[in-house]
């Protein structure tokens, strides 16, 4: 078989090109005592990395592909999703391209890292599983995460998991699940990074309720205009809580918050993250068998 028609050689060349493209946007992040970790250029002056690799707030240095090192400052961090954003003094990095569609199980991927000035490092694998949500503590919830069999070498945390075209499918981290390496999907990481640029942290809201999932009868689904088999029955409302102030009552069944359906506690946590925090927000409930919309100002969890 000639080299031109050999798909194995073509695949090998594609992998090299993917490493070159994504490697240009993969940087060294030096903010801890032991070996440096990696980061991905979210913008030419903003570097997305894993929060747990930042052991100090000052004297953070970022290593560029040409081997030079520049100072960086902390632009925002979110321990709940183990993401942090660093700011460079000027636009020095080649911006990474996230994948347009979510990753799929079985897709070929490369894990990249730049934990040393010697050059880019890579390992090959596939997307093994797409799981979630993952409770990461302090009311935080990672909606979704990727697993891969690509070897996570030391210092790969904060670096990208890329597809065969060199587009970022996720941000690798070993800091979320004890002993296991996983990747935060690019779509989620990019949207969290957008919030970090604006606010410096991810706002996580709370209502002040205790709840449990319950079935919604077909007749009530029809009345709601929603095909939703379950909602969250309120079994407790805390005194002086946002829920009490807004008028939520024990016995209400929450079905949606700000238009996003809520069928279990994980979806409740997800719906209370981000822009709704601190704002009057419509909470759709079933009260006494009838649909009602209650406006609640979502509190911020400190």
């Amino acid at each position: 078989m000639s080299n031109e028609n050999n798909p194995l050689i073509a695949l090998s060349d594609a992998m090299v090109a993917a490493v070159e493209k994504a490697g240009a946007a993969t940087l060294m992040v030096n903010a801890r005592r032991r070996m440096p970790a990696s980061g991905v250029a979210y913008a030419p002056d903003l570097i997305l990395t894993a929060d747990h690799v930042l052991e100090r707030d000052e004297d953070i240095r970022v290593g560029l592909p040409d081997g030079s090192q520049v100072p960086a400052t902390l632009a925002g961090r979110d321990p709940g999703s183990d993401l942090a954003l660093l700011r460079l003094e000027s636009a020095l990095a080649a911006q990474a391209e996230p994948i347009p569609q979510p990753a799929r199980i079985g897709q070929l991927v490369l894990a990249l890292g730049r934990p040393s000035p010697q050059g880019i490092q890579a390992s090959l694998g596939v997307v093994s599983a797409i799981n979630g949500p993952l409770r990461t503590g302090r009311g935080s919830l990672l909606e979704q995460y990727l697993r891969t069999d690509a070897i996570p070498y030391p210092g790969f945390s904060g670096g990208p998991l890329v597809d065969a075209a060199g587009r970022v499918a996720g941000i690798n981290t070993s800091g979320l699940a004890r002993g296991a390496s996983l990747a935060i999907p690019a779509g989620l990481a990019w949207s969290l990074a957008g919030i970090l640029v604006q606010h410096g942290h991810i706002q996580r809201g709370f209502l002040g309720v205790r709840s449990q999932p319950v079935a919604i009868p077909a007749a009530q689904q029809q009345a709601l205009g929603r095909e939703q088999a379950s909602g969250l029955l309120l079994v407790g409302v805390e005194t002086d809580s946002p829920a009490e102030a807004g008028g939520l009552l024990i016995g209400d069944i929450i079905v949606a918050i700000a238009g996003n359906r809520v069928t279990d506690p994980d979806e409740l946590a997800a719906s209370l993250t981000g822009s709704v925090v601190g704002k009057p927000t419509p909470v759709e409930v079933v009260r006494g068998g009838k649909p009602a919309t209650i406006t609640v100002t979502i509190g911020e969890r400190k």
Partner: protein
Amino acid sequence: MSERFLSAMLDDSMAEVARRVQRSLVVVHNGRRGAGAGVVWRAGGYIITNYHVIAHGKPAVSIQDGSEYPARVVAQAPDLDLALLQIDSPQHPAALLADSRGMQVGQIVFAIGHPWGQRGYVTAGVISSLDTVQTRNGHGAVPIIRSDVLLAPGNSGGPLVNAAGGVLGINTMIVGGDQGVAIPSHVVESFVNQSIEERGGARN
């Protein structure tokens, strides 16, 4: 290109790589327990293996048809973990060599050897990084290939090949860690050239 067609062509290419490499792959015994791998590097019966495979004992080589030859140690370089052997089977085909100076991170590679005694076992991965190690004698800083292919005892001395079946390096135990390490073929080639010239032998 339909996906079925592509996967069938990929399978064919991989089978071709394995076939090409296995022709010049040998088993290196040292008269004791355990065995390593080796590659027919050059016509004239010249075989490359790891130094540690033949360091203690009298080496012998089995070729693919199972026949066994006693082997002479032509040269050895413990700091590179390389040894050049010669067997009296000049017709045995030499491996296709790839120039490792052009290798790049991300390239697909295959390791072929005899891990845990399983003959001609193939594992796949990519080149993970290009690095150098400091050797103690003579050879100074030597480039090495790190890859994510699975290696085990019995891969020692065997080839790391590229997607065209060309030998990019020789798998070795020169440094520890969880990554497979290979000595690039251009380093092996200069060791072979030097060894044969020092013996006053003709290059053939």
